[in-house]
Structures are given as C-alpha cells and as structure tokens.
C-alpha cells in the first residue's frame, strides 16, 4: 500500500501533498495574520456598524459590492473555461482545468462572502431564508450563486476522483481515510470510467448556462434599478464578457504562480500561456467593444442624469479611474497579446496583472459614480473614499484566496494526474484520427457513401 | 395604576407594533385593545410654553408622557404662529438637555477671563452681589439683550428702586421703542406695527421677513397668499427668492433707491395726493416760514433723484425702478419697511427716513395694510418706566457703573467693538452674569448665576409687532429645573428682598406675574382664546363693541391664562391717523436736513464689501451649540455644522477659490479664515458671512466653529452696520 510516490510518473504533482514545502508554515502564518487583521476589522464593523467604512449617502455601496462583482467575475475563469475547453476537446486543456475549477470554487465563496460583509445586519441574514422574495434581484443572485457553487464544486470533484484514488495508494493516517472516503470506491474499471466521463461531459454542458446566468444576474442587481448608467440592457452580456476576461487574467496569474512555486514547467508550458493569451486578446477586444457600445449609447442618448455620470467618468472626479481602466484593460495589454514574441509567460502575466487591476477598476467605476450622481439634478452629489477597514477586508479576501489554494495544494494535485496520463497515452491516436477526418474531401466522400 | 414610559414603549404602536395590534384584533382581543387605546389616548398631556428661540415668542404645546417632555408642537391658538413651529422651537426639547449648561453658581478663581471658576453656594453668591450693590446702589446697572414682558419691567423697577439711572440694553431691534426715524418724522412714542396681513404690496428694504426679522413664522403665514413682496437686498436671500420683485442695490444705497422710487411716484402721480396735502409737512417748498425759502421734498426728489442718477449710484437699472415704483404705487395698500436689523450703513438715519418717506407718499400711516399702533395689554404696572440706554458702551466707559448684572447679552461676541467692550467691562468692580451657557462675556464675569432654561421657568411676553392685536402671553414652567439653577427674575426679587426694596416685595416671581395679570382681568376687554369656533363668535361680538366676561373671578381667569397662555384683544390697535401722527403731521423736514450732507460713494472701487446676515436657524443668536440646528445648515449652505464665506463664482475665480477651500478675509479691523462656498446668490464684489457662529466659548459644540463676521466689521458707533471692506485671499492647504 504505502508505495513511495517518488517512483510514480507525475511525482512532481504529488510532491506538495506528501512533502511539506519549507515555505508552508511561514506563508500560512502570513496569510493567517492578514486574515486575522481583516477579521479584527470586521469585528469592529460588526460591533460599531458600517460607519467604519467610507460609505455614505448617496454612495451606499462601495468596496464590498465592487469586490463581490470582481470576485464573482474572476470565478468565471475557472469552471466556464474548463467546461468550454472540455466540450471542444481542446487537448491543451488537460493541465489547466483543475487549476481553473479550483479558482472558481475558492473565489465564488469569497465573492459571496463580500455580500455578507456588506450587510448592515449580518445577524439577520436568516431573514433571507425566512422572508426572502424572488422579486429582488439579490435573491436571484443568491439562488444562482448557490447553484453555480454547487455545480462547480461537483464539477471540480468529479474529475478529482481518479486522482484521489491514486493518492490513496500513497497516503496513510487521516489522509488515507479522507482519500478513502472521497475516492468513492474508484478502481478505474471501464464501467466506472464511463460513468465518470458521462458525468463530466454532462456537467460541462450544464455548468456553462449556469455560469453565464450567474454573472448576468450579478449585472441585473444594477441594471434592474433605474439609476443612470446602470439601467441598461447591455449590462448582462457586458458583465459576462468582463467576467470571462478578468477570469482568464486571474487564471493566467494563478497558473504562472503555481508553475513557478510547484515546478510545473513540464505541464504548464509556454504554449498554454500562448493559447490563453490569445483568448485574453479576444476578450480584451470584446471588452473594448462592449465598453464603447455602453458609453456611446449613453453619450448619444444625452439623457441628463446619465450625462452627469458619464462626464464624471470621462473628465470629472472619476476620470483617473476610468482612463486607468482603459489603459489597463485595452491599451497596454493589446501589444503584449498581439505580438507572438510578447505572448509568452512573462508577457501574458503582465497583461493579466494589468487586466486584473483594470477589471477591478471597471467594477468600481460602474458602482461608485452612478451612486455618487443620483438622477435628479436637485439631489446632492456624493463622494466616496474607502476606509482602512474596507482595504483591510479586501486584503483579507485575497489572503483567504491564497490560503484556500495553499490548503488545496496540500491535499490534492493541482494538475489532473489521470487526465495528464490519458493525454500522454491516448491523445495521439485520438487526435491523429481526428485530423485524418479533417482531410479535404473526406466529409463529402462520407456523405456520398 | 401608574403607567411608566417603559410600559408605554412596550405596548405602544410603533411602525411595526401596529402589526401586533392588528394581529390581536384578528384574534378577538377587542376588549383588551380598546383598553389599551383608551389608556394611550389619555396618556399624553399637553402644557403650554412660550418659545424662547428668538424674539418672535411663538406659543408651543409641549407634549408629555409620564412627566417626560417627548414632543413640541406649535400652539394652534397662539396668534403669532397659529400652530406652526420652526427648528429653533422644536429644538428647545434638546437644548434644555445640553450637557454644557451651567447648573451651579460659579465664582471667578483666577484672573478675569482666565476661565477659572469655582463652585459656590447660592447664599455666598447672593451675599456677594448684595454687598456690592449695597456699597453703591446708584452705580449698579443691568445690561440686557433681547427680551420683553415682565422681565423687562422687573429690571426697570429694580434699578429704579436702587436709584440707578442706567438700564443698558444691547440688541439690534428695540421692539418697545419706535425707530428714530418714526420719532422724528411722526412724533411717535410707542412702536408701530406694519399691517402685513392687510397689505397688498410690501416693499422691504433688507428686512429678511422669512429668515430673522421679527416673527418669520407670522410673516411666512400672512405673506404666503397674494401679497406682492418687493425685496431690496444685496443678497439673494430666501426672502428675496420669495419676492415678486427683487433688486440688489450696492450695500448702503437703500436711501437713494427709495428716493429714486419717490421720484417716479411723484412724476407719474402715483402718490396719495390727498394724504400729502393733509398730513405731509415739508412736501412742497416752504414759503410760509420767515427766512430763506426751504426746499421741499418734492423739489429734492425731483431734482436730485432722477432714475439715471439713482441707477448709477445704486446699480439698479432704471427699468427695474419703474417696475417697483409702479407696483408699489399701484393703488393697493402698500407699505415700506425701513427696519433692517443691522442698519443701512453709515447713512442709516438718512436711509431710514428716505425709505419711510415712501410710506408718506402712499399714505400708509393709519391705513389698513399700512401702519398701525399697538395698544399695550392693560397689565398692572409695576413702577414708572426706566427708559433703556441704547448706547451701553459709552455709559460703561464713562465709569459711573461699578456693579453690572448681565442678562442675555454677550457683547464680546455680538458687538463689533469687542476691544472697547473688553476694556469697559474690565473697569467694573463686579460683573455678574445670569447665564445658561459659558459664553465669551460670561467668562469675564466675577460671578455666574445659572439661569434656568426657558421651559423651566415662568415667562411672559408682550407682542408688539403683530398688527391688529394686543397680545400678552404667559407660560409656567413645564419641566423641572436641571441642576441648581434659578430663574434670573427670582434672583432679582431675592436681591430686592435682601436690599429691602419695598416696591418689589413679592414672595416670588409668579405672584408678580399674577398681580400683573389682574390688570388684564379688570380691563374689561380682550379674551383668552379657548377654541377656534368659540373664538369666531367672540370676535364677532367684540367687533360690534360687546364684551362678555369669560370668567367670574380672577382665580379662574388666572387658571385659564396659565393653561392657554394667551390673552389677546383684537380691537386694540389704533388705525386712526391722528394716533399715528401725534404731532399732527408726517414731517419730511428731518429727511431734508439729512439729505443735505454730501453723499459718499459707498462702494469702494475694486474692493470687496463684506455683509453679514442671519440665517434662520441661527437667528435666535444663541444657537451655535445646538447640534440639530447646526446640522440643518446643510440646507442653506450645503454644508452642515458650518457657516461658510459666501462668494460669487467670478469673485472666487479671480482668486482661484473653489467651494470648500479655505480663504482669509482681512479688513481694517481684523482677519479671519473660513471655508468658502460659491453661489450665484451673492453679487460680484460682495462677500456674505452668516452671523451666529464663530464663538470662542460656547459649549463643546459651539466653540471654534465657523467665523464671526464681527471680527471684521467696522465699528460705526452704537448701531450695528453689518458691512465692511475686506480683502480676500486663498489659504493654501498644508
């Protein structure tokens, strides 16, 4: 039973699980102290009230809602991308899918948590269950995020089963028990493989509409109100596109970090970054198109309430944020992603970092300027500066994300071992067969037969 | 069963509690519900009190639950406010609870002005005052601010009994006296009231009718209808925005503007020729007197105040002058108000008389919608009147006064002549302050005797400004005193006892008030309004000359007066022209005299003129520490808890100032730094500063907040002028 994992193929994937990395405790301590500080800040907020934040009237939403939208956006990277790649049978998906799916599960919880952080009366959160009403888009959110969370967790778990079974062979003690329970009696029989593949395939199909619905519904929180620059039909698709965009960026960053930390250069190769970079480029163009569509519509319509918000973003108080966002999301990443020689690991990571900042800013300037410039010309203008509590909680969220990833990496392989093996063993034949079928004239011939 | 408020809070229907009640009702607990409802309705008690927030003295209904003051509403039957109420009145509930209030007698420990005081007993404090007065009774005086009624009479009698010739008052309006111009032009000795309710056109020269002038609530009510208001004010005030016509002359040129209007009225025959012929003296050139022929008003105005010249001097376009003149002289009862609080600049007397001459031209004296004379309520007199000395500073500087009692006056804050005041007060042997708050002047006092909050003591008032009624209001304490304070009137009566002043031998202040009220009872006129319907019948009867006794004996009259708080006599104003012009004419000759002095251009070219004004929330003068009022400043200023320097955007642009920036204002008298707010409501080359903030010492919330325009205003003598030339510069942050 207790075979040494080091003799296994793909041993590098199992190393972080069975050999405690030397940075583990320092990093854990650092993350826990950041989280503890954030928890203390939240304790202050819980005790004193939301007054410790910078929010006010009329800017009654700030960092927390921004982070909510941002993290939910990042979560799209994972499951959605992995599902699309699985469905299209993109071969290069194999080392990426699990990393992506785990991002989703980790970040979705954090995103949902930001809504809770934002509540004035967290002690009454049970009211959502007792007296909730489906008319409120917030409940749509609650439902679709729960669904997405459940589906993503399932979608993460199912392809994990064979790997858990592999790990079980090397694990003792509580790990052995855990893997024993979670492997669900996996033996790798043909029948089991078939069931597993069927489930994976089904979930990949199911998860795509759920993922799209989640971010559409997040957008609906804003677009269902009558507020200037929120009340727009483009918001659903705009948010989905933005979510995939920021999600891809998040995925690239996480991949690069993991590649470096866990020495996964053999699995996460420049070609992966190249392909994801191409996807990122496409999404950047999409994002730019949606942004133009949104702002041009508002500008051309010239509705006074909207124009106040519009100009506050273009030249006013929020112009700095707006133009920084355009730089980060489009102007700077574009050359990095267009030229092949930049579309390497470093180039895509830089572009991704820029895009992450840019997309966070986008969420921020969607929320704050509209709230600060209410529709009526009579109504007072607002200003918003986040307080240290909000910054701390945001830092806590990032730390929590890293912590979750760290703990996950100590329990499960970050790259799907069995899929990688499958790729090595079977792919060549499958792809060769597939390419054979692409050959010119084959299709017509088949039809004629 | 004694019902506590806690029980009440538990059972009462709040927004949600109503659900509970509804639910009970559904389950057949109708009886229980009914009992609760019955009890709830009986629980609330109402007591009458007089508002002390400003000089208007509105009537209040204080609502009590379990002897706790939980609400204040306007008293519907009080003629001044008729149920309305303003932020200052509403906030009395909280003002009373201010933790900064002085609650024990204090004696100065350190040097004057050091702010070091020690707590002393009342006995010790009163002995000290008694001894000081005893040593030189004639050198005792009292410096009072804004108050009326029996308090005023009591102080007069007290000083008179001591043989002191000095009763000092410091305030911007003297309600018990007619203005100087009225005395000189009409020979009046008692105050006039302007019949704003009856007027069709009201021409107000800087009187901020809805913000701080006399009784804003009353004016708001009577002018909300079809009255055409013409507001002359350099600032686009709230009052100006309610006016049909608003004109913004250069500050200090109101007199010229008035005579410019007179010019048009005369040339176009829009004046009351009958009145002019019968009553006005000095209208035509005077040829009957011996000696050189004196020019008449007509010559003066027609020759010297043509629209072009007036336009050049005042900045008001001739077209606008015609518009105003036609409206004002258009036939309807019109009245011109020359009663601006801070005065009309260096040529105050001239301006006031010039404005008042418009009243002569439209024949407003004695006319409905014009000027009337109020009859004082027939209160039992206390003693002979001691006319207040309205130039207190000179009296103090003369050094004849050794002991000074200070009541509701804070000259070190409210007077532009702060340094002179400080020096004059320093000469005193004993300065005693009756105060509820530690303010600038009280800090200089040797002894502070804590006064009671207005809701904690007996108050009365004689309202003289409201045309058409003779009005006396009285209120008894509605809440228990907080701390060891005593009503100042009681303290004065106690001093009188100790000094053996027989004319003030009253056991306490209520018995003095009771004695005064006996006069009302015996006068066989007037009534105590009980209910609206009742009042209509009574009014009708009285109009026809009938008077019906409401009460059989004085005791029941006294009880009713305490409960209702109001005695009034609607038939007590004198509209007869002979009453309004006791000298037999409306004399314009004093104006002609004043007009002879050469005119000094008031607007310093290129300079900025600072003008102060009173925002409504602060117009009581003692509100700088009331959180709710400070918070309500967000309405007029856009910023709560602050009184910004108001600037026109063009003025500001030249100095690179934006709303929220700090600016420094420097005048010949001093300088101050404050935040700026840009508004079009202020003309270019003008700066407006709200008055009421900028206290050095006024409780925790009132100290060091905002700016005090008095630090900059030129001191032109006893009258507050309200403007001054200043230089403005930006204060760089950091």
């Amino acid at each position: 039973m207790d075979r040494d994992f080091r003799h296994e193929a793909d041993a590098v994937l199992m190393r972080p699980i069975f050999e405690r990395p030397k940075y583990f405790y320092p990093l854990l301590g650092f993350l826990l102290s950041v989280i503890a500080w954030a928890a203390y800040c939240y304790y202050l907020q819980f005790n004193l009230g939301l007054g410790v934040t910078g929010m006010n009237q009329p800017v009654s939403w700030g960092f927390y809602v921004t982070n909510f939208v941002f993290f939910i956006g990042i979560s799209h990277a994972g499951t959605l991308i992995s599902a699309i790649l699985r469905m299209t049978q993109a071969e290069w998906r194999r080392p990426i899918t699990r990393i992506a799916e785990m991002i989703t599960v980790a970040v979705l919880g954090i995103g949902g948590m930001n809504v809770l952080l934002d509540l004035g009366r967290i002690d009454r959160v049970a009211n959502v269950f007792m007296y909730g009403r489906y008319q409120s888009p917030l409940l749509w959110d609650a439902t679709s995020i729960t669904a997405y969370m459940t589906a993503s967790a399932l979608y993460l778990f199912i392809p994990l089963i064979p790997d858990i079974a592999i790990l079980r062979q090397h694990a003792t003690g509580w790990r052995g028990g855990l893997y024993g329970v979670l492997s669900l009696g996996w033996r790798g029989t043909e029948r089991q493989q078939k069931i597993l593949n069927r489930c994976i395939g089904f979930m990949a199909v199911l998860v795509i509409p759920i993922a799209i619905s989640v971010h559409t519904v997040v957008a609906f929180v804003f677009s269902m109100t009558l507020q200037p620059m929120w009340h727009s039909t483009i918001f659903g698709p705009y948010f989905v596109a933005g979510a995939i965009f920021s999600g891809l960026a998040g995925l690239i960053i996480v991949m690069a970090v993991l590649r470096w930390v866990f020495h996964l250069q053999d699995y996460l190769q420049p070609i992966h970054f190249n392909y994801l970079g191409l996807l990122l480029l496409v999404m950047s163009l999409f994002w730019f198109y949606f942004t133009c569509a949104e702002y041009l519509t508002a500008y051309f319509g010239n509705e006074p309430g909207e124009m106040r918000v519009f100009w506050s973003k273009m030249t006013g108080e929020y112009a700095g944020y707006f133009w920084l966002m355009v730089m980060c999301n489009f102007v700077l990443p574009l050359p990095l992603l267009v030229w092949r020689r930049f579309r390497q690991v470093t180039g895509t990571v830089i572009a991704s970092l820029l895009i992450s900042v840019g997309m966070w800013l986008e969420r921020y300037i969607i929320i704050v300027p509209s709230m600060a410039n209410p529709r009526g010309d009579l109504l007072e203008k607002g200003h918003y500066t986040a307080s240290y509590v909000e910054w701390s909680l945001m830092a806590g969220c990032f730390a929590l994300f890293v912590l979750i990833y760290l703990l996950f990496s100590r329990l499960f392989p970050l790259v799907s071992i069995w899929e990688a093996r499958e790729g090595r063993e079977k792919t060549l034949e499958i792809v060769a067969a597939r390419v054979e079928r692409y050959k010119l004239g084959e299709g017509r011939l088949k039809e004629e037969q | 069963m004694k019902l506590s408020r806690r029980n009440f809070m538990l059972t009462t229907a709040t927004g949600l509690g109503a659900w509970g009640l509804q639910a009970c009702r559904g389950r057949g607990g109708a009886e229980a519900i009914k009992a609760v409802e019955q009890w709830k309705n009986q629980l609330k008690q109402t007591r009458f009190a007089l508002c002390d927030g400003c000089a208007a003295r509105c009537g209040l209904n204080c609502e009590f639950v379990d002897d706790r003051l939980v609400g204040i509403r306007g008293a519907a039957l009080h003629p001044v406010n008729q149920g309305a109420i303003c932020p200052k009145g509403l906030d009395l509930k909280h003002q009373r609870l201010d933790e900064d209030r002085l609650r024990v007698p204090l004696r100065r420990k350190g040097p004057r002005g050091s702010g070091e005081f020690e707590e002393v007993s009342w006995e010790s404090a009163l002995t000290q005052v008694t001894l000081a007065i005893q040593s030189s009774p004639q050198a005792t005086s009292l410096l009072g601010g804004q108050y009326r009624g029996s308090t005023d009479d009591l102080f007069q009698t007290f000083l008179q009994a001591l043989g002191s010739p000095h009763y000092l008052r410091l305030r911007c309006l003297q309600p018990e006296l007619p203005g100087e111009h009225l005395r000189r032009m009409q020979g009046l000795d008692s105050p006039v009231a302007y019949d704003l309710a009856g007027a069709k056109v009201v021409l107000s020269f800087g009187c901020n009718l809805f913000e701080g002038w006399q009784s804003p609530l009353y004016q708001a009510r009577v002018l909300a209808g079809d009255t055409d208001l013409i507001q002359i004010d350099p600032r686009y005030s709230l009052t100006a925005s309610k006016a049909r016509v608003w004109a913004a002359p250069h500050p200090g040129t109101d007199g010229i503007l008035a005579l410019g209007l007179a010019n048009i009225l005369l040339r176009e025959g829009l004046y009351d020729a009958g009145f002019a012929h019968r009553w006005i003296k000095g209208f035509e050139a005077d040829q009957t007197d011996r000696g050189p022929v004196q020019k008449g008003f007509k010559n003066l105005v027609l020759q010297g105040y043509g629209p072009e010249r007036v336009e050049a001097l005042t900045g008001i376009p001739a077209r606008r002058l015609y518009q105003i003149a036609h409206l004002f002289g258009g036939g309807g009862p019109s009245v011109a108000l020359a009663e601006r609080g801070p005065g009309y600049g260096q040529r105050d007397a001239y301006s006031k008389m010039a404005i008042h001459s418009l009243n002569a031209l439209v024949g407003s004296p004695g006319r409905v919608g014009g000027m009337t004379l109020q009859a004082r309520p027939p209160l039992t007199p206390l003693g002979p009147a001691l006319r207040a000395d309205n130039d207190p500073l000179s009296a103090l500087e003369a050094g004849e006064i050794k002991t000074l009692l200070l009541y509701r006056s804070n000259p070190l804050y409210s007077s532009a002549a702060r340094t002179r005041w400080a020096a004059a007060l320093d000469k005193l042997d004993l300065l005693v302050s009756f105060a509820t708050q530690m303010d600038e002047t009280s800090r200089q006092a040797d002894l502070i005797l804590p006064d009671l909050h207005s809701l904690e003591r007996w108050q009365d008032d004689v309202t003289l400004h409201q045309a058409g009624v003779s009005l006396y209001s009285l209120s008894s304490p509605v809440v228990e005193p907080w701390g060891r304070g005593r009503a100042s009137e009681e303290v004065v009566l106690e001093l009188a006892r100790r000094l053996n002043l027989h004319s003030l031998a009253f056991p306490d202040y209520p018995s003095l008030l009771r004695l005064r009220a006996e006069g009302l009872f015996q006068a066989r006129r007037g009534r105590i309004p009980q209910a609206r319907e009742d009042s209509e019948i009574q009014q009708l009867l009285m109009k026809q000359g009938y008077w019906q006794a409401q009460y059989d004996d004085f005791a029941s009259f006294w009880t009713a007066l305490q409960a209702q708080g109001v005695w009034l006599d609607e038939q007590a104003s004198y509209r007869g022209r002979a009453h309004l012009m006791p000298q037999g004419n409306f004399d314009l000759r004093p104006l002609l005299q004043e007009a002879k002095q050469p005119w000094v251009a008031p607007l310093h070219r290129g300079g900025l003129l600072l003008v102060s004004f009173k925002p409504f929330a602060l117009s009581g003068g003692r509100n700088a520490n009331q959180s709710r009022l400070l918070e309500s400043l967000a309405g007029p200023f856009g910023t709560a808890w602050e009184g910004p320097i108001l600037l026109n955007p063009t003025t500001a642009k030249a100095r690179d100032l934006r709303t929220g920036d700090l600016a420094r204002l420097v005048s010949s008298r001093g300088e101050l730094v404050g935040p700026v707010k840009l508004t079009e409501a202020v003309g270019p080359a003008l700066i407006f500063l709200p008055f009421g903030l900028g206290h050095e010492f006024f409780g925790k919330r009132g100290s060091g907040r905002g700016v005090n325009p008095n630090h900059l205003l030129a001191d032109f003598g006893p009258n507050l002028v309200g403007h001054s030339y200043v230089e403005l510069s930006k204060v760089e942050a950091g």
Partner: protein
Amino acid sequence: MSRWGMVIDLEKCNGCEACAAACQAECNQPPVGESEARMGRKISWLKISEELTGKFPDLHRRMIPQPCMQCDDPPCVRVCPVHATYLGEGGIVAQIYQRCIGCRFCMAACPYTVKYFNWYNYAGGLPAAEQEAMNPEVSPRPRGVVEKCTFCHHRLLLAKDQARLQGNDPARAVYHPACEEACPAKAIYFGDLDDSTTEVARLAQSHRASRLMEDLGTNPKVYYLARKENHG
C-alpha cells in the same frame, strides 16, 4: 381605503426647514454629529434641496422639500430581498426596521435618494436624557438598518384608534403629518388623494401640479405646485 398623498406648494415654501426639523423631532431622527454629517450621512427624512438657476442678479430659486415620494410603484420595494420595505396601508411605503438586513439595495434603487442608513448606532448613542425625550410613538432605529419617511404612519394609527373610540369608521380617519403641521407658510397639504373632496386631491389635479421624475413611472404621491401663471 385611503390613498395618502401630499402636495407641496413651492410658491409658498420659503425654505425655512421647519418641516424637516419637525420631521426629525417627531420621528426621532438623531443628529449624526459633525464628522458624520460632513461625510454625507445626515439623516433627514424630509430633506430640502435648493434649486438656484440663473446668473446674478437674474436669479430664480426654489426650495424643494423632499420627503419619501411614497411611490405607488416604488423601486425600493421591488428590490428588497426580505420584505423589509413594502407598500403598506393607504399607499404608504413602509419599512420594517426589525426585518431589514441592511443590504442597502433599496437605497441604491431609490431614484430620489430618500432612504437613509444607520451607519452607526446614532439613536442609541444619544445621551440618556435625549433618549428619554424621544417621541414614544416612533421606535428609534438600531444601527445597520435603512429608515425613511413614513408619512407619520403612527399618527394614522392614532387617528384610527381615536375614530374607533369615538365610534367612527377607522377607515375614514383623517390625520396630519408633522411636517404639514409645522409649516408656517401652509405650503404643505396632506390628505386622501382618492377622496375628491379633499384639498390635496383638488390640488394634485391642478395644472400647476407635477411630480419629481414623473417619467420614471414610479407614480409618486408627493406633488409639487409650480409657480403661478400670473407671476410668469
């Protein structure tokens, strides 16, 4: 069933803030203090906005008191996740403070920005004496919940109780909110919009009447009377 509405005559209103202050006193809206007020967290269920147009000296100013517009189709109610705000009796948009979870979605949805949030425990932070002086008819709000103008709903409940005690039909009870009562210029009219005999119903039909952001379709029950014709 009554449909309570308000008409505010802007021609009469002189911006004295009496209504706002009366509202604060009646409904226990505490002062939030200097730093809070400067952050824009002032609570004033009835706020007064200044509308100043033109250039000196050709100016026009209106002071516009804004309570909750008590929309017939309130955007805030649509978004509330927990039924903490709902269209209650007589068309009054109610807020259940004990139910509210403080998500502030209603604040984000309200185009009139007349919903206010208790960022801190403002009411509970007042000195004990001031708390005792609160109006016992209206519950003070804890921190973390949204609050708003209730058209003095507690006065309606009292009026109904009174009617019941006197043997009258409680459904026909008439009441007056604190702001209307306090207004010195009598610029505020309040009553049943569905009862054509009331002054409010008549004025709401007047050609001078309009509502704020009528085009949003929220159907507010607060009407404003614009300037008179003859004053052009």
